[in-house]
């Protein structure tokens, strides 16, 4: 880890020695920050104004007075003019979906990676490649056959239909497999000599050693699950299981018909969980991505 820090620190030191280069660096950085932060700032400010402000075509850059009213309105009622669902329900649905997808993906991929990495059985490489090749297929390619299966099973408009098809994860399996391959053979053998069977070894050694990897994956997969749009769009038609992403899009009507202040309020709310997860798990996340020593 210290090496990575040094290599990042070195270029900064070089720039610091030259005032003009220093200024250029700052200009570029400020531009970058503006580019990324401005839209979010506008959304944040927009969520504190009444319907009229944005309706007139203004882009508010300063906070307004309607924040409390807007947030409590969408939280408990949603966007009433467009027959909306309360944002609290949609957030709950999204949270259930994102969490179950995350746990499901981690659980399934870690045990399949364990099988592929530590056991030799006939067809092991075949299984590995079968998993690996599905990496290259984007969700969209298999979305219609998947929908067919889900609808035949009667899972449309259920949590199960929303979550189960997204649970298999080739990427996570591959990631865990690569990590497992770095566990020294001697450790496996030492556990064998100690009398640990495969399940004990998994529980007592592999799982604790994978903790940082699991944390990193948790962050990535939670954000992935939270941001799902296409699949929920197909598989939910009732408002019971509607997710926040679908809800936001449904709030958008024709230009004059959209209550932008409410859309922006909802957007801010939708942003919060992923941001919270990233901030809370940041330390673990970085550790999981850079840690190589065991």
């Amino acid at each position, binding site marked *: 880890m210290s090496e990575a820090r040094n290599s990042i620190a070195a270029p900064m030191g070089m720039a610091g020695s030259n005032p003009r280069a220093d200024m250029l660096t700052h200009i570029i950085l400020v531009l970058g920050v503006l580019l990324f932060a401005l839209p979010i700032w506008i959304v944040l400010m927009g969520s504190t104004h009444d319907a009229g402000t944005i309706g007139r075509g203004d882009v508010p850059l300063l906070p307004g007075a309607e924040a409390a009213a807007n947030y409590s309105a969408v939280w408990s009622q949603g966007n009433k003019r467009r027959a909306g669902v309360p944002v609290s329900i949609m957030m709950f649905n999204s949270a259930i979906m994102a969490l179950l997808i995350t746990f499901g993906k981690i659980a399934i991929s870690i045990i399949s990676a364990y099988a592929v990495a530590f056991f030799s059985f006939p067809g092991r490489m075949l299984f590995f490649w079968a998993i690996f090749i599905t990496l290259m297929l984007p969700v969209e390619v298999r979305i219609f056959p998947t929908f067919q299966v889900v609808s035949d099973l009667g899972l449309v408009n259920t949590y199960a239909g929303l979550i189960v098809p997204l649970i298999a994860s080739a990427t996570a399996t591959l990631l865990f497999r690569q990590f497992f391959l770095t566990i*020294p053979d*001697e*450790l496996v*053998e*030492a*556990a*064998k*000599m*100690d*009398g*640990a069977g495969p399940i*004990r070894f998994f529980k*007592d*050694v592999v799982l*604790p*050693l994978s903790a940082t990897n699991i944390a990193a994956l948790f962050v990535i997969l939670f954000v992935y699950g939270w941001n799902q749009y296409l699949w929920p769009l197909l598989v939910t038609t009732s408002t019971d299981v509607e997710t926040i992403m679908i809800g936001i899009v449904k709030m958008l009507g024709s230009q004059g018909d959209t209550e932008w202040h409410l859309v922006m309020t909802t957007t801010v709310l939708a942003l919060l969980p992923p941001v919270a997860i990233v901030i809370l798990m940041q330390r673990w996340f970085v550790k999981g991505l850079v840690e190589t*020593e*065991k």
Partner: protein
Amino acid sequence: MAELKLSGIVKNFGAVRVLHGIDLAVQNGEMIVIVGASGCGKSTLLRIVAGLERATGGTVLIDDRDVTALEPAARDIAMVFQNYALYPHMRVFDNMAYGLRIRGLAKDDIKRRVQEAADLLGLSALLDRRPRELSGGQRQRVAMGRAIVREPKLFLFDEPLSNLDAKLRVAMRAEIKRLQRRLGVTSLFVTHDQVEAMTLGDRLVVMHEGRAAQIASPMEIFERPADTYVAGFIGSPAMNFLPATITEDGKGARLSDGNIIALPPGQFAAQPGQKVTLGIRPEHISLPGPLRLTTDLIEPLGSESVVHGRLASGETMALRLPGAPPSATVLEIAPRAEHLHVFDAETGKRLPPPA
């Protein structure tokens, strides 16, 4: 404590045969060191005893029980690995206790045993640390502690000292020997280091290309090596070899430059005219003598000097001379007959004593 008996151990990796039938009987409490160059099959043999590798043929008996087909855990043995293989996420205490917990021992028993082993190894103050907070020597001790607490029938050591620095290696070597004596557990110790082998083993197994070239006590191997491989492997600097032919009267050997060296009487059954290889250790050469050696490198070691050079007939030789290095560039040297080894030039085997 147990007796270990290997008979006819054969191992193939695919089409390659790496062990060609090893027989070995280890007595109760004995420390056997398996030594050989890398690739000689010594680690494979140890892993077959451990149960981590399955033998292609032959049987492994521990206390007359056939364990050839058993899993490692069922053999009641413990192993110390080269890189220690400690569980990185567990404290020292848990590392040592893990095997006992799996065996379902009572908590008090586990605590007592771990504490005893920790006291024995000087680890008592470190029980709450994690492996990464320990030095190499301490990790090594934990790995041994993990083996000791199990109170196994057999200790297996797979080059446990080769990751330590030179000074620590010497200290740990003595410690292992003392510990093994004290516990009296039958042990197999694999190493490529001849000094470790000589100092640790009650008996050595010198392995060469998948065969046991010689199984004997360290001094026996040093004084009466069974063939040229063993002779050259044990001893430092290595034994000098000179091609020669037995003289007509059978009492001497003629070197390629015509010089005749007398054989020690009554030790080797040599036929007149037989082609042989003479072996002479560097420390068994004295001045002056009939052979002329042109020196090309002198290594002063303080109490003695190692001189490398070339004979008039072209063979290179090394000799150890006591005291300060000689100043002359040409030395007249003589192998001491009583320390001469005679091997058959074709088979490399030591000539048997006369019948």
